[in-house]
């Protein structure tokens, strides 16, 4: 059997997830042995439109981006997303709190040329609004994290190639954190989103004494009420709590609002 042909594509992102893959260094060579990378814009000039697996980084922003991701989906047999941008909409989804016009006004209109060149008539500036990839096309596997954990990426890709179930945990970061014998940051007077956040990063932040900021999104059955109570007990205001719940995960808030609106 010929090796599956893999292509990488990026949308609105910081390209940190692709860099996390480049940073696998020699380890990537094991995976590379099993696949043919036919397109990886960040690292190579070669490009092919003939691929089996598409790996997508970034959130989907404008009609031109919707069109592009739909074409990729039509070509790819398997579509995998990497990172919080593609999975949830990324930190930039916080911009959805405002209308596209309000965002353009704040960022561009204060500069010469900023009002006339950024209207919807210019396709580069047409109706920018952040969405996760699965809100636009079907996604076969979403690797969470901001950035992704490179090792997890390699494992997921391998599992997909071998037709096994995806090794993405559905328990909270606390489990990994305790296994790593960290002092809980709550004991240090800080607060943490680890109890409701999906593990798989090997508790990267709390290992270094920093709070989990929830970049991997929620586990499928989060104890949100209990988490909110704890945060209140630690003196956080309702606004503080909302900020903690939305840094990388404004998607959930938007979905909750949409549901309320729909009732």
């Amino acid at each position, binding site marked *: 059997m010929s090796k599956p042909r893999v292509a990488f594509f*990026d*949308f*609105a*992102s*910081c*390209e*940190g997830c692709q*860099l*996390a893959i*480049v*940073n696998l*260094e*020699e380890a990537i060579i094991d995976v590379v042995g099993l696949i043919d*990378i036919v397109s*990886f*814009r*960040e*690292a*190579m*000039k*070669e*490009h092919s439109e003939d691929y089996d697996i598409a790996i997508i980084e*970034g*959130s989907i*922003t*404008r009609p*031109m*981006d919707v069109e592009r991701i739909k074409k990729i989906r039509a070509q790819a047999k398997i579509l995998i997303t990497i990172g919080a941008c593609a999975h949830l909409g*990324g*930190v*930039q989804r*916080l*911009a959805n*709190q*405002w209308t596209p016009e*309000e*965002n*353009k006004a*704040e*960022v*561009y209109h204060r*500069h*010469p*040329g900023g009002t006339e*060149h950024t209207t919807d008539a210019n396709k*580069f*500036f047409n109706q*920018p609004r*952040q969405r996760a990839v699965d809100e636009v096309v079907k996604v076969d596997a979403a690797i969470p994290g*901001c*950035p992704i954990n490179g090792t997890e990426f390699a494992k997921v890709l391998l599992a997909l190639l071998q037709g096994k179930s995806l090794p993405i945990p559905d328990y909270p970061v606390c489990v990994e954190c305790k296994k790593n014998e960290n002092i809980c940051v709550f004991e240090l007077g800080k607060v943490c989103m680890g109890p409701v956040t999906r593990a798989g990063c090997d508790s*990267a*932040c709390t290992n*270094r*004494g*920093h709070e989990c*900021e929830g970049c991997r999104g929620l586990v499928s059955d989060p104890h949100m009420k209990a988490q909110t109570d704890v945060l209140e007990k630690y003196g956080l205001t309702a606004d*503080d709590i909302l*900020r903690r719940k939305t*840094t990388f995960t404004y998607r959930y808030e938007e979905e909750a609002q949409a549901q309320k609106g729909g009732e």
Partner: protein
Amino acid sequence: MSDINIKVEHLTRVEGHGNIIMNASNGQIEKVQWQISEAPRFFESFVRGRAWHEMAHITCRICGICSIGHTEASLKATEAAMGIELSEQTKILRRLIKAAENLQSHVLHVGYLVAPDLLGVDSVFPLIATHPEAVKKIISLHRLANEMSNLLAGRTIHPNCMIPGGFTSVPSDKEMRALKQKLVDAIPTFLDVAEIVLANAGALPNFTRETEFIALTADDEYALYDGDIGSTDGGRWPVEKYLEITNEFVVPQSTAKYTKHARDSYMVGALARFNLNYDKLSPLAKEWAAKFGLSPVCHNPFMNSVAQLVECFNDVETTLAWIDKLLATGMDQENICTKYEVKAGRGVGATDVPRGILFHDYTFDENGICTKANCIIPTNQNHNNIQHDFEALAPTLLDKPEKEIELTLEMLVRAYDPCISCSCHYLDVSWKR
């Protein structure tokens, strides 16, 4: 003369999305344009309403490859706004982390992204077969730089132990000694890689267009972490005056904002720093600049990659000196973060990241909530200079085959090492036929 129509969409081996458009007929350029089609993400808009302690961890997501520099510029802006003083140890650690980022980014750029052009191949992958030893060396240096930032910053991409006032954890003496030894051991590898680049440097185009170079500058060090704003046209300004230098404006072909100072455009990045701060470079860095025939003020943007290599030597030598300084007193594991009071105010923070000078400017209310933000990214400052280089370079290429013109224009953009994701984030050359 035949018509030339170039359209390179999504230029490869740069971070982000950019297109090159060039049309010419009868020996006349009709259009040569550098386009940035990157989707806008509106950081300056959506950080309004976020708390001071999360600013660095949000704004570092502007760019994965410069995330350390964004973190530091962001922390400096917050610290300036709230009057937070840093310990000596924190200041040195921040400089070490800055050096680690510079090394990581430069090795990646020169080794993985520029070397293929010099050796006439499309990516680093074919080099694995043809130049296995060289690729292994480049990988080992890249990994070392990553290990350094993992140790000091928690993570290479989006560092997680750097917070306003200092750190959430710092390395032990033992870890610092081990890092020092690894760097000392890596010097011969750096020399080997530099020799390989030197042997192929003849492939760098010889193109000169006079421009202004802007970078941080300091009296007592080669400025990366801290300094004033300096220009090769003369002049020195405190970072708070950055708006007088950057003068952002918007053009229809780019979602990244453009900038200009006294001339039509200016350049930032390794070559700008080299041109402005040459005398502060370490001995080995100066020695290698001489080997490449690089001396200030150099107006050939293709030499930016060489300036990056020279800076790698400077980073290694200064890092070794800083580690010695920390080890002389031993790492303080107790006072790793200054206590401070959250208060209202405005602060500007600047660092010189691998791709050039970077500014973050925040205003906070009395609860430490951001009410206004401005971030000016290096690649944005370079876009306008790239466009002006195109306009000067393209007419000199017209008698060349289309493929060669395309490659030269692409190489020019890559020399700037643009991370367009930063600037909102892209690279394509399109030949319109």
